[in-house]
């Protein structure tokens, strides 16, 4: 609008900065929108320059990534043993959550879970033996993410554990995840006592074959459909999976009964019914199988993995291949179970932030105001958190919607450029593990991702763009 055209119009003002200016304008009845501005992250000028030169290319590539994410079709198609299906899995390999890490830098709960897994595998008789073995060179550690797999909390997957097999029917890729053990003393929080191992063995002996038969009976289960419905029922499918678990239960129950003896069917269905988080281990691989299809799009600044190993927080971008960008994992702001406090809390841990990466979890918290109460927030805070996440995403989901925002699609496709430019960090729902091995969960809460991995990732992307040019 030319200067002289402005003189003929009513002023419509966007106020970026001092709110007192907005107040004065409102007093003289002028239309004004206030921007709640934050400074961008600290990053070198050169990176920003490269990014700004390539900005239209990056945007174009991000649209491609978003399209792949939106068109993903995650189905549960089978259950198998880890060693039989997970690519690259070995007899002496243990997969873990988060970016790569060595035993000496692992946190307490991750070590605890590995001790439990070695006992479960029969590779050690007792915790002392297991610890010795774990610290030796005989065991190979690798991130779940590098094997099309995700795991909640410690995310430990050992060779004989049964896993869900998911397929992205649109792109043909697969993803894997163990079955959820429930709450209390469980391996994923680093507990390795006798009852933990016994439950894992029961899951392998009873739950696994029963569900396998049921899933095969049904052929496949549409997880996208379940997640979309669950969002309308108060879940964000990360910290709250009650509705999704119920929906899954309704689909699987007849098939479980049809394909199993009554006493087995009763126990299996009781187990699922008794664990509100059962669906977490399906929502996570559903997100993983969706996001993996959006990998390796050159120049794309979309995050395809965002995860923590209890020590480091790491992300991967679509445009930078298998490269990890890591920073220190923060300690969550949480509501603690009685008797525990922030002093007991481990640094943030788990692959479960794959849900946020796919626009669910903390990004969809407006669907699940119950979660925000974990940190004493209000229902309005939940709406605000989700609305803030639209600032850092490429687009909105076409299937996953938020009723309280007029069925607006969930904010989808975290754009690292926007994260850095706006200084706004992804918002994550999470569970909190005790920092000592063997104790388990001590609370649940929310947190913002740390900035370091994002600024590093943007630098990495800028470098890859420069290479491409040369």
């Amino acid at each position, binding site marked *: 609008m030319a200067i002289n055209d402005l003189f003929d119009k009513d002023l419509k003002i966007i106020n970026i900065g001092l709110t007192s200016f907005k107040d004065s304008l409102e007093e003289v009845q002028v239309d004004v929108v206030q921007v709640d501005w934050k400074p961008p992250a600290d990053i070198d000028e050169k990176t920003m320059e490269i990014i700004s030169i390539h900005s239209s290319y990056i945007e174009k590539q991000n649209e491609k990534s978003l399209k792949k994410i939106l068109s993903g079709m995650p189905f549960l198609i089978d259950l198998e043993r880890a060693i039989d299906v997970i690519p690259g899995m070995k007899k002496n390999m243990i997969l873990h959550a988060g970016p790569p890490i060595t035993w000496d830098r692992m946190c307490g709960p991750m070590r605890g879970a590995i001790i439990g897994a070695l006992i479960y595998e029969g590779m050690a008789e007792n915790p002392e033996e297991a610890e010795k073995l774990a610290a030796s060179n005989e065991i190979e550690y690798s991130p779940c993410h590098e094997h099309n797999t995700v795991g909640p909390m410690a995310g430990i997957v050992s060779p004989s554990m049964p896993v869900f097999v998911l397929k992205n029917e649109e792109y043909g890729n697969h993803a894997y995840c163990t079955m959820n053990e429930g709450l209390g003393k469980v391996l994923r929080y680093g507990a390795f006592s006798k009852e933990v191992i016994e439950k894992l063995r029961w899951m392998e002996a009873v739950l696994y074959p029963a569900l396998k038969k049921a899933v095969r009976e049904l052929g496949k289960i549409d997880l996208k459909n379940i997640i979309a419905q669950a969002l309308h029922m108060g879940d964000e499918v990360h910290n709250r999976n009650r509705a999704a678990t119920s929906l899954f239960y309704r689909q699987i129950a007849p098939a479980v009964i049809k394909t199993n003896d009554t006493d087995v069917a009763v126990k299996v269905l009781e187990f699922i019914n008794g664990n509100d988080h059962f669906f977490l281990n399906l929502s996570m691989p559903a997100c993983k199988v969706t996001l993996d299809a959006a990998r390796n799009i050159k120049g794309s600044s979309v995050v395809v993995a965002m995860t923590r190993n209890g020590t480091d927080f790491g992300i991967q971008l679509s445009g930078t291949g298998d490269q990890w960008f890591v920073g220190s994992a923060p300690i969550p702001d949480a509501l603690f179970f009685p008797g525990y406090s922030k002093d007991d809390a481990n640094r943030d841990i788990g692959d479960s932030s794959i849900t946020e990466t796919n626009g669910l979890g903390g990004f969809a918290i407006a669907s699940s105001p119950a979660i925000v109460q974990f940190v004493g927030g209000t229902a309005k805070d939940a709406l605000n958190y989700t609305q803030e996440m639209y600032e850092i995403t490429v687009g909105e989901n076409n299937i996953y919607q938020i009723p309280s925002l007029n069925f607006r699609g969930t904010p989808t496709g975290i754009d690292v450029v926007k994260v850095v430019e*706006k200084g706004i960090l992804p918002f994550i729902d999470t569970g909190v593990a005790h920092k000592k091995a063997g104790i388990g969960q001590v609370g649940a809460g929310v947190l913002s991702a740390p900035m370091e991995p994002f600024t590093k990732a943007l630098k990495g992307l800028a470098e890859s763009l420069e290479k491409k040019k040369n």
Partner: protein
Amino acid sequence: MVVKGKIKRGEYFDSVTLMLVAKQINVIAGITDAAVVMNTEENRSILESSGLLMPEFESAKGSDLLICLKAESNEIAEKAMLQVDDVLDKVRHEISDTEDFLPKSLETAMKTMPDANLALISVAGKYAAREAMKALKKGLHVMIFSDNVPIENEIKLKKYAKENDLLVMGPDCGTAIINGVPLAFANVVNRGNVGIVAASGTGLQEISSIISNNGSGISQAIGTGGRDVKKEVGGIIFLAALDALNRDKSTEIIVLVSKPPAKEVLKKILEKVKNITKPVIAIFFGADDKTFKNSKAIQAKTLEEAAFIAVNLAKKKDKDSFKEMLVKRQKTIQETAKKEVNTKNREQKYLRGLFCGGTLCEEAQIIFQDQIGDVYSNMSSKEKFLLKDSWESCRNTVIDMGGDEFTVGRPHPMIDFSLRNRRILKEAEDPEVAVILFDVVLGYGSNMNPAEELVPVIKKANSISKRGQISFVCSITGTEYDPQNRRKVKQKLEEAGVYVMESNAAACELSGLIIKILSEKFEKKEDRHGNK
């Protein structure tokens, strides 16, 4: 005296919030100075100059908050430090608990208001240019209130704006009136047929207020930011605004106002004036009279004069018909001055001008130069009259209280009177002081209760100066439509014995005259400074 410092990592607050926090801490008994600032280079250098840059601040990063307290004792400092935490916490949570969702970026705000046409930007200077460029690229006109924007960014923005026929007012543009809407620090004035282009904030306020107070009004008042008329920027927006006003049907008279522009820029402006079809009145402080020879522009000597000429032309009267009124006023001023001189003792001979308006302080220096000779100032363009220490006056002195040395961690003196109030009392203690001159600037953004804050200080100052009476003279820039209401402020100040003049020029005239008569009356042997 102890000095205590603390870094709060990764805590971002906007500068105004921090100033309000600092203000609350500064009033604690036993605290002599408090700074609560974000760790920017500018803030660091300001802290350094005021002796508040602690060694431990070395490790601070860009997003860190720096707190520094000067206190009478360690105990007071520690207590106050805790209070800072409390206040910050309160400020943070007041926002997060109650506010509706606010867009976090221009692009999101544009979704709420797709037909937005102007962005008002007041974020920290180093980020302002980026936000401004984003707004320009979306086709919005921009006003940048922020200062400390690198000049190369200003040039880039203004070049882009020129190519796309957009306005960039600022950086460091404190005031503008577009389509009758007062932006940032601006007065509520009548609408009318006078358009203003200003590279001077209080200049724009003073002229627009006087025009409005004399029954005419403003079509558009466009601020350009002081640097626009410097050589580097070359007057890009000043010239574009002049063109726009020339084309604007509602504008019949144009007023140009600026602190000293660069020679080549002034030349360009006067060149452009040749092609302007409307009468142009110009006041460029410090410009050589010769430059105006053969120019179509009508040169005004003071802001008031510029306003009067504009009013006469707006009312289709002879442009000089105001002069009669000025002659009459001169008589009144003379009578008042004589009366005031009689209240002084032999020692009293100097004036102290304490300004919150930078252009008003500049105008005062020029008026006094003719009347009583050069005066000292923290903003003097003459080396000899530049104060060595801004906190200590010397003979006849005028101070711009908006200077950086006074605004570290504090709101501008138009908002926060506390520093100037202290200075008024300090000057009153000086037995050689005869006149205290000050300005009051009204309008949105300024202090909402100026009279209530000034009157007790003036009363106290009067009680301090025992030997002879001090004359208090002031001008009020503003209108009766301003939220503070000029008429009411004037009445209260007059009740406290202050001479409230119609303009800064008139206030200077009265103050200078008192000094002039005093010096003639008590002629001393010593050579008076600054005589020509």
